[in-house]
């Protein structure tokens, strides 16, 4: 029996180690980001909430400043780290944007812990590669919620602060349910509190939170905006349709559903919030295997059948819904939000150049705009 026990322990140890190594590597894998011409400094989010310091939830804030003073905007990506079009858009902006007027804050890994988490039960890939002219650029595929390694245990029910609304237990680790947050709450409330402090102390005018949503979910392919942002959102929606030929309708931010960035940023600061949703077929439930191909090209035969049966909320055909298209939508809609805000507030303008729009991204692919970290000045390379 003792010999059998030793054999069983050995087998269990081997299987555990084989499973643990890829998870450990994924959690500690660093994505290089080359700071572009407009990046003047890189700060830590913990500057605005010291409780984050030294935790995996602390994250980089890239500050891109223009020569002319103007307004300020914050771009958030990876609030949900399994919706990576936002992350690619943020990295593209950091590496390429030139700020003519105003200041742009970019947080590429807003939920940094979720970006190092995965969902083995759903068969998520650990990484995905974006082809570039200098080889594949590898990104971590994250999860919707922060890792329990940062915040554990979950409560039976998450009681939102300060509205006391009862939310799913999982939402205590979801940084799009913990707004506006608090300094002495769970760690993810600390993350959103730090962002609120950034918005309030730096007097940020516009906040854009980039997401992805299932094609079977009604709130997809849209801009979610509260009443105070709805005029700009409507103009943006009409302009991208007329000028660039893609749909992005406006969804009103529900007044009684709490914890979401588009609700609480508007209610607890002077900032105009916008949440962008680009369709991501990978997240739909009735698809084939959750492969990297599905993540990048969005092609799935089951969704195609559902589209023919008119069960989807977006147009869907054999071309799928590729990543380049999703990043293109985020880029164009973000640039258009800033343009419309600048038109209404010229003294607080936020003017960017050097960022490709929808048609260029669909034509060239997002990888065309990533810079080779091996050839960049080492001081300009940051690891996310």
């Amino acid at each position, binding site marked *: 029996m003792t010999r059998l026990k030793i054999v069983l*322990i050995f087998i269990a140890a081997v299987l555990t180690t084989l499973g*643990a190594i890829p998870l450990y590597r994924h959690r500690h894998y660093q994505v290089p980001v080359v700071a572009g011409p407009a990046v003047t400094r890189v700060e830590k989010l913990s500057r605005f909430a010291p409780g984050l310091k030294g935790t995996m939830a602390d994250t980089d804030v890239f500050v891109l400043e223009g020569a002319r003073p103007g307004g300020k905007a914050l771009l958030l990506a990876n609030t949900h780290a399994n919706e990576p079009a936002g992350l690619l858009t943020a990295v593209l902006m950091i590496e390429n944007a030139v700020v003519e007027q105003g200041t742009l804050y970019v947080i590429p890994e807003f939920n940094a812990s979720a970006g190092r988490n995965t969902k083995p039960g759903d068969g998520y890939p650990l990484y995905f590669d974006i082809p570039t002219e200098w080889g594949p650029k590898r990104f971590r595929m994250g999860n919707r919620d922060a890792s329990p390694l940062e915040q554990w245990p979950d409560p039976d029910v998450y009681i939102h602060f300060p509205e006391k609304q009862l939310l799913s237990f999982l939402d205590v680790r979801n940084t799009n349910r913990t707004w506006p947050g608090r300094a002495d709450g769970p760690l993810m409330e600390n993350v959103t509190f730090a962002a609120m402090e950034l918005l309030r102390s730096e007097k940020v005018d516009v906040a854009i939170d980039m997401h992805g949503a299932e094609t079977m979910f009604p709130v997809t392919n849209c801009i979610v905006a509260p009443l105070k942002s709805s005029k700009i959102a409507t103009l943006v929606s009409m302009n991208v349709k007329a000028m660039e030929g893609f749909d992005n309708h406006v969804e009103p931010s529900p007044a009684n559903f709490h914890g979401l960035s588009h609700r609480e940023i508007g209610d607890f600061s002077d900032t105009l919030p916008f949440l962008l949703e680009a369709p991501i077929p990978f997240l739909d439930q009735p698809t084939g295997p959750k492969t990297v191909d599905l993540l990048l090209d969005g092609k799935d035969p089951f969704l195609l059948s559902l589209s023919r049966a008119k069960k989807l909320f977006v147009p869907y055909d054999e071309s799928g819904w590729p990543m380049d298209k999703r990043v293109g939508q985020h880029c164009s809609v973000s640039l258009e939000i800033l343009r419309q805000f600048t038109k209404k507030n010229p003294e607080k303008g936020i003017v960017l150049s050097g960022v490709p729009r929808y048609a260029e991204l669909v034509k060239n692919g997002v990888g065309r705009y990533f810079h080779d970290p091996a050839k960049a000045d080492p001081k300009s390379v940051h690891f996310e």
Partner: protein
Amino acid sequence: MSVIMIVYYLLSIYLTVVLAGNFIREKKNVNDLILTLLVLIPLILRILRVK
């Protein structure tokens, strides 16, 4: 790390010790040995802060 999180790690270590004791004491049932090891895997991964 919050106090409640430290308590949960201590609980995990306690359960790991109890299960390891059960594994050592088990003399006949191979199924129980395998099941005990399977239950131990997520506890060990959490204690080692891997998953």
